[in-house]
């Protein structure tokens, strides 16, 4: 039950951000699906005791792979799906807390929260970039026929 609620609300949140960011209308439902899958992974890892930095990395990694698949399918730039998809993972609440601590002159707590924001957003960015790089290398190898399966077939012939 809890999973269904989380899934529905992360879908709504991501799709609404698709509207605010003015994504093409036919892409908005897919943005919602990408975002809700990313959030469910983050949520499940969080329940199992993985810390938020690693969970964000894993979520962003999956979001990037899904975004790339959809981008290839619909021939649109990948940014449309990845920008809305990472919205639930983005540390908006912590960024807000950081700034509130700092304007309330609680610098120690503010610094602590600021480092959390930096680490989480760094992890998200790394997840996106790593997924992209790994997929690029993979595709290049596939094109040249350097994966083990293809070279095996060639040798057999």
């Amino acid at each position, binding site marked *: 039950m809890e999973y269904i*609620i*989380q899934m529905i*609300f*992360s879908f*709504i*949140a991501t799709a*609404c*951000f*698709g*509207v*605010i*960011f*003015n*994504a*093409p209308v036919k*892409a908005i439902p897919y943005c919602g699906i990408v975002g809700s899958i990313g*959030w469910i992974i983050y949520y499940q890892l969080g329940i199992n005791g993985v810390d938020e930095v690693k969970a964000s990395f894993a979520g962003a990694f999956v979001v990037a792979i899904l975004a790339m698949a959809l981008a290839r399918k619909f*021939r*649109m*730039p990948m*940014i*449309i799906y990845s*920008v*809305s998809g*990472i*919205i*639930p993972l*983005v*540390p*908006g*609440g912590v*960024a*807000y*807390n*950081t*700034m*509130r601590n*700092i*304007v*309330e002159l609680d610098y120690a707590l503010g610094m602590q929260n600021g480092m959390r*924001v930096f680490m989480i*957003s*760094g992890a*998200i*960015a*790394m997840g*996106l*970039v790593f997924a992209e790089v790994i997929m690029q290398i993979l595709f290049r190898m596939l094109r040249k026929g350097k994966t083990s399966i293809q070279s095996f077939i060639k040798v057999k012939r």
Partner: protein
Amino acid sequence: MIEKPQQNELAIDCFLLAGRIMMESGAETYRVEDTMLRMARSQNMNDAQSYVTPTGIIFSLGKTQPTRISAISTRVTDLHRIALVNNVSRKLTSHIITLEEAYDELNTIQKTNYFLPVTLQVLAASFASISFLILFGGIWGDMPAAFIAGGVGQYVVMVMQKLSRVKFFSEFVATLGVGMVASLALYFGYGTQIDKIIIGSVMPLVPGLLITNAVRDLMAGHFTAGMAKGAEAFLTAFAIGAGIALVMAW
């Protein structure tokens, strides 16, 4: 690649316009550079160089050719435009359309407003706010307060952005509105956890995406772009924090 000068002028105009629309709509820096260079190469202009920052684009067609710059002052997130420009560049690089047709299409994209109606965007912000309230562990009873606060925040930002050019002032006023709605809801007994309500309703304004993009640009080696975006994100976060703190201090 020595061609007629008019052809070169048109090409530079066309590539700069494409880069400019993409950058104004919030595309990544490396993608803008890549798109401009690809378009240039498809027209047999192999010496092209481009240098893209969030505040301006410098583009040159080579040693003997003119270099032009284009300043960028407004930056919003408009994914529809990015998709359209991408489409034009795809068609140009596969030689389906000519340079003149591409330039005409880009001009149309530049002039048209693709944003959805204001009511729809405000409603989207409201629904996003209640979703984040639930995702961050809030309770169901706080939903009406978050719904109104999120809508008010988005509406105020859009109105203020039309009135004043200073982006941070409009964000400050918007969070002031959000904070006031949240504390009024608490005062009249329509809400319980003010922190959760506020976090949910400022999510449409918070620069989380800008922070992530800044780190991404830094990792790709675009240090100027990363630093500029980081500064923008910091100022936005500061405006939001200040707006909320003012309400809290009351």
